[in-house]
């Protein structure tokens, strides 16, 4: 698959402070790419560089194979973390102004804006001033501003911070729909659940350095520890426990169950497969529950950062 956005060795310093150090990532076409990192890791700096708000000291950004240039602005839609609108300007007028700055003609922008207003059922807001709207309403307008010019690349910086749950769900659904319609989405966050839910790819940045990147499923495979969560009703409990201790690494666990079963996390050595474990368990009792423990993005995040500390 072709990459829509490629960053090659991008570095940025503010005075003596290094905000980004030799960052290279590849964002494939029509994917959702999450940039993860704690606060101050350099996520926003990178996003501002892609938006040509700040210039990198070193390195290059390619959009669709071309080095970034001012005309690319119209292919990018950006929802910054610090977002707002002109308070005393009317909604319709304001969105038209911002869309025209992105290169749309007034006529085209009006047609598209009407479509979005109908779709989000906010048609009667056209002549309202932003200061008359609630925060959630203003967030919808901001989302429309970001997508109105149908950009190839959508950038959301902490898209779910500040949105109420209803709007956050709405935005999530729209993001998925935009991806299915052909857009590529780059978003930064420090909230792991959203990466879990949405992202096809991810990159982890910590203290201006990239620690890991790649396909989310691939990364998870790398981080899994051959551990299985098991719920079993053993025939001879004491004997079973003893045998288990001898063969595997066992730790207690908890999950909701309707049975009176023994709940365990069992880590198997490399030479074993899950089938070996299963047949061993089958011989000693009734199995109610057998699941591979897949590391959450959160686990990966904490583990990686700890190993680099």
């Amino acid at each position, binding site marked *: 698959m072709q990459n829509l956005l490629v960053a090659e060795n991008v570095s940025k310093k503010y005075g003596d402070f290094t905000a980004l150090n030799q960052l290279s990532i590849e964002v494939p076409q029509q994917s959702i790419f999450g940039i993860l990192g704690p606060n101050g890791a350099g996520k926003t700096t990178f996003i501002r560089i892609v938006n040509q*708000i700040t210039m990198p000291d070193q390195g290059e950004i390619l959009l669709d194979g071309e080095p970034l240039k001012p005309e690319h602005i119209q292919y990018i839609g*950006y929802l910054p973390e610090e977002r707002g609108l002109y308070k005393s300007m009317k909604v319709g007028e304001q969105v038209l102004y911002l869309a025209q700055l992105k290169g749309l003609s007034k006529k085209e922008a009006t047609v598209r804006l009407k479509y979005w207003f109908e779709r989000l059922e906010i048609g009667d807001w056209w002549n309202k001033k932003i200061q008359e709207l609630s925060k959630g309403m203003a967030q919808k307008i901001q989302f429309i501003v970001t997508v109105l010019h149908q950009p190839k690349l959508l950038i959301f910086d902490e898209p779910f911070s500040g949105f109420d749950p209803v709007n956050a769900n709405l935005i999530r659904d729209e993001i998925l729909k935009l991806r299915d319609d052909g857009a590529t989405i780059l978003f930064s966050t420090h909230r792991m659940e959203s990466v879990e839910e949405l992202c096809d790819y991810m990159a982890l940045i910590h203290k201006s350095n990239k620690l890991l990147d790649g396909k989310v499923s691939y990364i998870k495979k790398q981080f899994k520890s051959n551990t299985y969560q098991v719920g079993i009703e053993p025939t001879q409990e004491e004997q079973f426990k003893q045998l288990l201790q001898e063969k595997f690494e066992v730790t207690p666990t908890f999950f909701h169950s309707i049975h009176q079963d023994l709940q365990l996390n069992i880590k198997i050595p490399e030479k074993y497969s899950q089938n070996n474990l299963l047949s061993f368990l089958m011989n000693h009792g009734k199995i109610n529950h057998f699941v591979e423990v897949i590391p959450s993005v959160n686990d990966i995040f904490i583990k990686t950062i700890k190993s680099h500390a």
Partner: protein
Amino acid sequence: MRNLKLIIVREYLARVRNKTFMIMTFLSPIIMVGMVILIAYLSSLNSDENKIIAVYDESDNAFFNEFKSDENISYLDYSDMSLEAAIDSVAKKEYYGLLFFPNSTDNQYLAKHTEFFANKAPGISFLSDIESKISTVLTEKELQRRGVNLNEINQAKTKVNLQIENFSGEETSKLSNYVKMFFGGAAGYLLMMFIIIYGNMVMRSVIEEKTNRIIEIIISSVKPMQLMVGKILGTSLAGITQFAIWIVFGSILLFVVTSIFGIDISNSSPVASTALDMGTQDEIGKLIIDIVHLPLGKIVFCFLIYFIGGYFLYSSLYAAIGAAVDSETDTQQFMLPIILPLMLGIYVGFFSVIDNPHGTISTIFSYIPLTSPVVMLMRIPFGVAWWEIVLSMAILICTIFLLIWVAAKIYRVGILMYGKKPSYKELYKWLRY
């Protein structure tokens, strides 16, 4: 360019549609005209006030006869009672004061020991008026005592009225200096007002974008430099609109009000009344020729350049300040470097240029870019060589580019900086980002 136009239009509309802006546009001329009328009214009241002064003369010089009552001051003779009774009576009747001449025939003694009793300290011009009257009386008496014929002296007195002619042989009016002063002063003052009012407006609009947090959305579409220039241009167009309305609306209002109330405004301005005092047909004729002969083309051309240049210079500074701070209250510490050169320009203009338009101080300050727009504008009506103007403009234009570059740097960094209270040191660091 398309974006710049969009920004200018938006900024213009945002300013013009603002309620305060609309109110000020129509209220200011009304307030100004009201103030002019009030001042005219008050100054007519002031000159109508009649001061009553008692004269107590112990000497046999008959001073009382020398003081003629006029419409401003009335003199009463109180010499026929005791001094204490006279003072009592003056105090009780709340007269302005009592002039006391001691009993002496010695003019030198009289000159030193004449006294004025008053409850409130009298005005300086009033005192010097009385002093010169007494001095005239005493001098005449002394001259008579020495046997000099007063008539001969009066006949020998000659009044001089210098006729001024320039080197090309045209007679000019002395009044033309007032006219030049007026042109220069008005231009300089106008520029200062414009800079302060609309520079502040630029600053506020930058701060507004920061506090509304829309700035990042905007600069993901346009270059910060474009946004800054667009803001300055849009705001100045709004300013020009407002000024134009003020001038048209104000003059109509002034004309209507003065013709209704029949107040003669010209009477209350000292320049105009001097003009009337000296205003023989001949002088007025010369004055008109003078005004026509003023380098009007040059004045208008230079006015435009310096006005635009000065405004750009200062408003880019205002924009940089707006970008550096989070709220308007934080701007105080940065205001001084803007206000100081402006005030300096005005003071140099009103004190040095009017006194000596081509002196060293005036010349130097008409080259320094932060003061040159004001000072040079005030010098030009007095005649400034083209090379001087070109040099001063060249310095100004170079500085504008330099300052816009500096301001744009601060602006670029500052608009994305929240929660940091910037110091000058911090700003210097931003220049190197």
